[in-house]
């Protein structure tokens, strides 16, 4: 996953740049090996970046 994430970064950066404020910008966020709740085939995926404090 680490390697994959590294390779993804340039692409993500591009995506982030294009996502400025268009009507419905979408960003693709890799799930990687992060904790997941819910089935892999779910039609909606929520990725949350959190800070517990």
């Amino acid at each position, binding site marked *: *996953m*680490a390697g994959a*994430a590294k390779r993804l*970064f340039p692409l*993500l*950066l591009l995506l*982030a740049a294009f*996502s400025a404020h268009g009507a*419905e*910008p*979408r*960003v*693709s*966020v*890799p*799930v*990687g*090996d*992060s*904790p*997941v*709740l*819910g*089935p*892999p085939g*779910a*039609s*909606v*995926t*929520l*990725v*949350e*970046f*959190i*800070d*517990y*404090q």
Partner: protein
Amino acid sequence: MKEYRGKIRLVVKHFPYRYRDLSLMASEAALSAGDQGKFWEMHRLLLRNSPRLDRGSLLGYAGEIGLNVKKFTGSLDGKAHSGNIERDRQLALALGIYSTPTLFINGRRVVGERPYEYFRRIVEEELAAAR
């Protein structure tokens, strides 16, 4: 989120703010609980009890949810998951995240805390689009 069981999945990534003293350790605690198959139990306790996230409290939570506390402590103190957390942090920065919580619903960015209805509307839109 229960009402959407089976239709949605939730992925958690960590973006501890460096000026909050206990954020990083709390993320370590959640992932350490995950090693023993109890990430979500710990996740819920941390959210509920924040900001009581000092080391003593974290060890208490570990006992509360029936973890092997010795193993948990070793993992917490050894910062066993610093690599995972750093990877999440780099991803967050690459995605231009500047605030927590930030949520992506099928890639649609939602910055900050919102009323439940706000999330619900987007989830409904996405479910409708998937149909």
